[in-house]
């Protein structure tokens, strides 16, 4: 697929195709922005217009922020996703290292179990986990939001793939230098795995920032609610959905992820490339 310098027509075709596809990908976002900028009466009128006659984005944002404590939700989302990610790394990295680089009895069986766990959908085990959290007495708290996800089998899988590509020599060198196995994980593997950790981070943050199901089940307190619950608050069949503020709120909660991705994007692609999914 090398583009020879002289073939300009292909470059044009490529852009046309990609832009068309990009438009399809973006339409929902554009429509979201457009709707978020319209007053209620314009939203429900049957003539289609992208640019609102009356620009109501600020009003809708204001309503959104007034109706729900969005800042608080965003903060909760931040706390929860960061906690989850940090703990996942803390738990998954040593395990991934052990699975990738150390030989021990039962390694293959245990790893097969890890892979099997990837298949379990989170809804499936919701009830037993809920009861477990109850037994631990941590329902309706940050712990309840975080604890079930501290184990990321996908993370272990991904990081193991990456660690397998780290040369054994590097680990042996560390051992010769007197770094313990535990130290190797944090002083040697983690720094070399930064791109892969970034890739995993994006998966993890996206999944947990956007998780709707679990917070809904374990939370009661208003002050712990996470961003998707905020969106759900605006969606209301009984009362009739207020689309303007809903879309505004949706924008607000999607924005942090998009911004974060823009920053991490290069590392992310690199990380996936390096994890040896090839």
């Amino acid at each position, binding site marked *: 697929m090398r583009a020879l310098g002289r073939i300009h027509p292909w470059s044009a075709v490529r852009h046309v195709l990609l832009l068309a596809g990009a438009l399809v990908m973006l339409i929902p976002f554009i429509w979201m922005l457009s709707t978020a900028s319209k007053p209620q009466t314009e939203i429900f009128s049957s003539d289609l217009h992208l640019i609102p006659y009356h620009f109501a984005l600020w009003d809708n944002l204001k309503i959104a922020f007034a109706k729900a404590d969005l800042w608080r939700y965003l903060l909760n989302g931040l706390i929860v996703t960061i906690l989850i990610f940090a703990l996942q790394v803390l738990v998954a990295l040593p395990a991934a290292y052990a699975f990738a680089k150390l030989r021990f009895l039962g390694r293959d069986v245990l790893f097969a179990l890890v892979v099997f766990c990837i298949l379990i959908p989170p809804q499936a085990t919701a009830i037993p986990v809920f009861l477990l959290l109850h037994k631990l007495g941590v329902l309706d708290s940050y712990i309840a939001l975080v604890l079930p996800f501290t184990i990321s089998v996908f993370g272990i899988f991904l990081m193991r793939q990456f660690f397998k590509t780290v040369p054994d020599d590097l680990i*042996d*060198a560390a051992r010769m230098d*007197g770094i313990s196995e535990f130290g190797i994980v944090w002083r040697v593997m983690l720094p070399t795995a930064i791109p892969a950790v970034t890739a995993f981070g994006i998966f993890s943050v996206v999944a947990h920032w956007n998780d709707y199901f679990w917070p809904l089940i374990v939370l009661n307190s208003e002050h712990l609610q996470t961003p998707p619950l905020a969106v759900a608050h605006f969606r209301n069949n009984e009362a009739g959905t207020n689309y303007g503020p809903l879309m505004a709120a949706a924008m607000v909660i999607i924005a942090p992820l998009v911004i974060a991705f823009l920053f991490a994007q290069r590392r992310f692609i690199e990380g996936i490339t390096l994890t040896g999914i090839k």
Partner: protein
Amino acid sequence: MAEIGIRALHKAFDGADVLKGVDLTIEDGEFISLVGPSGCGKSTLLRIIAGLEPQSSGEIWIDGANADGVRPSARNLAMVFQSYALYPHLSVFDNIAVPLRMKRLSALERMPLIGRLMPSRRRAERTIREDVERVAGQLEISPLLKRKPGQLSGGQRQRVAVGRAIVRQPRAFLFDEPLSNLDAKLRVHMRAEIAQLHRQLKTTFIYVTHDQAEAMTMSGRIAVMIGGELIQVGAPAAVYDDPQDIRVAEFIGTPKINAFPARVRSDGRLEALGHVLHATTPSPAGECRVCVRPERIELGASGLLSGTVVHLENLGSEAFVHIGSAGMNAPVVARVNDPSQLPAIGAAISYGFAPEAIRAFDASGKRIATSVPSRIERPREMAIV
């Protein structure tokens, strides 16, 4: 500085024997090279010495103490790896400082933030800095201390890896093909540097390589390992001149030694390619091989063997003539020191060799003693009569 003893060492991976009873004593301060073809178990032996891999049976003694169960870092050996194994995220300075920090700082002092606040750490860091800078000066990499390994050339990385090894003042250095990732020119240069380093440090060096030229040029002794066994250990010149096994003879020396199919006649004379040689052996009659190094093959009308020139390799400083001969499946290679006088390809040519140049091996590959019958007086008479 250390004397390292290896006793009856066995190692099996998944049931496959990789080391089959290795015995070797490495003297304090010695530079010994382990050579052998790829996969013969050199790295495995080195890793067992380092403590990175457990042996299946046998013992490693370091300075008179059994090293069994002693952690790699506690053995106080330094290792330089083929891939250099530098920490890619650390600067050259930090790379070299790692072993010192690990030894001199407590776990608490090594903590990322808290550690930095401790005055004891600051003191230790000062001495570490001095040590690292001293070593960097010694290896002439002082200007590179701030760079990351990714920003260094191969030779520079090599030196940083050596620096990391030197800085801890280990009892012995283990090298695992440290030069094989460098290009030919640089390899020749670094060869001299490492030899120089050994002369300067006077510490035990164990050097693994599959490049016999490296082993020959640098070390005091070389140990040739083939198929998990040490076949011959000795000074480079001795191993080159006096190989005890045909595998050693063929492995050491480029181009490869010429092997002529031969047999021991019942009268003890050797016979190769139908010519009876001016050499006798006490060995029983039977098939054998007669080997002659390329530089001992003499071209010219006086030689009694003949063939045609199939290929010429002119290196400028010397040249190799490849001669196809009836009865041989590989061409005979002869070195010509003065490349200005080369035969043409396709030309018929005669060649021969002196009887002293003969190294003979029996059917199992073991060396057979040969002697030149005393009645032959002329010192450089051709072996083939």
